[in-house]
């Protein structure tokens, strides 16, 4: 108090119940009741505090944020993890690209060990498969070259043999008379083509021999 009126700071302290003694508090309240000016000032302060309370009451979230916060946090965490491994991924990509380009540029001179080994193994495996198929169908192998395997089979067994050879390129010829000479090899047009022709030729004599060539891939 300044002797006549109560200072605003004291009213504010009163509002916060922060007056040191009960005696002082009562003295302030007595003055406010008896002094019009201080009463009006105190009323204004109370009015302002009501407006604060109004804001406190009304400014509330209209939603529960907990779900969205957790979801957003996890999403950001995943993104951060992704960006953390990005340098490693980038390094891996660069390495793979560099390795690939190196192989590409050196392709004219030599193939990689992996590539060359697979090239040499594949035909060998297929050759052994073809030999198996030929053996299963009671055919004879007459010649093995770099380009094909030539053999001979009876007309009755050729159809089955041809079927088992499947996608492989095959040409064939009919063996004439006892001399064992063969007619010109007939090139198949597509897989298992000319079956009707072949059947017609051998129907009358299933033991008639057919010479065939199975070409390597």
């Amino acid at each position, binding site marked *: 108090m300044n002797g006549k009126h109560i200072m605003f700071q004291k009213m504010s302290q009163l509002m916060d119940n922060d007056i040191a003694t009960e005696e002082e508090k009562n003295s302030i309240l007595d003055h406010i009741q008896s002094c019009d000016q201080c009463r009006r000032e105190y009323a204004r*302060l109370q009015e302002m505090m009501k407006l604060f309370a109004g804001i406190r009451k009304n400014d509330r979230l209209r939603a529960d944020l907990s779900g969205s916060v957790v979801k957003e*946090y996890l999403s950001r965490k995943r993104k951060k993890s992704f960006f953390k491994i990005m340098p490693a991924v980038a390094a891996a990509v660069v390495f793979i690209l560099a390795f690939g380009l190196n192989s590409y540029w050196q392709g004219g001179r030599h193939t990689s060990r992996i590539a060359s080994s697979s090239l040499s193994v594949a035909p060998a495996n297929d050759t052994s498969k073809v030999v198996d198929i030929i053996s299963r169908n009671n055919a004879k192998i007459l010649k093995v070259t770099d380009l094909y395997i030539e053999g001979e089979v009876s007309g009755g067994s050729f159809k089955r043999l041809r079927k088992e050879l499947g996608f492989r390129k095959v040409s064939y010829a009919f063996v004439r008379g006892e001399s064992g000479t063969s007619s010109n090899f007939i090139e198949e047009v597509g897989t298992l083509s000319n079956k009707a022709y072949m059947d017609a030729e051998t129907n009358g004599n299933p033991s008639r021999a057919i010479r065939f060539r199975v070409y390597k891939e």
Partner: protein
Amino acid sequence: MSNTEDIKNIEKVLAGDIEAFTPIIKKYQDMVFRYVYSKFNNYDEALDITQDIFIMAIEALKSFRGESKFSTWLYSIMINYCKNYRKKQNRFSLVSMNSSKDEDEYDIQYPDERERPEDEVIMNDSLRIMKEEIQNLPDDYRDILILRDIDGLSYNDISDTLGINLSNVKVRIHRGRELLKNRLYERGLI
């Protein structure tokens, strides 16, 4: 939920159970939102900022050592976030004014008054003027009045949160109230 319960939940979060942060968000979201909304006066913006503050709190949780109450620690994050956000905002508005506006044009910050049925009930004219005047207060007074008279923090919590001594807290509260009261009186609100 007491500070002890806060601490228990924090320990769970740090052990990997992120869902344990849910009760903490539920407990403090209104308090954080009120502070942010009072500062920026835009519901949607305040909503986004409130969410970001909680995310930042989760990310920084390892740095909480339990020396102060969790609420005090959270308020510190909230206040710093809002300060930085305002700085960024100011930088952005300077750039935009220089680059895309004519000299006679200037940005006016309108309060968020989009038509929502709830808003019409909630935002009566007195509260709108009150908020405007809170916005117009100097930073030192505005922040402390929001914490004290809107969020209801104790003198001690404010002292810890803002890192200023108790007597300074009291002085700022009383001076801030007096300044605000005078402005509201001049506008005929009280």
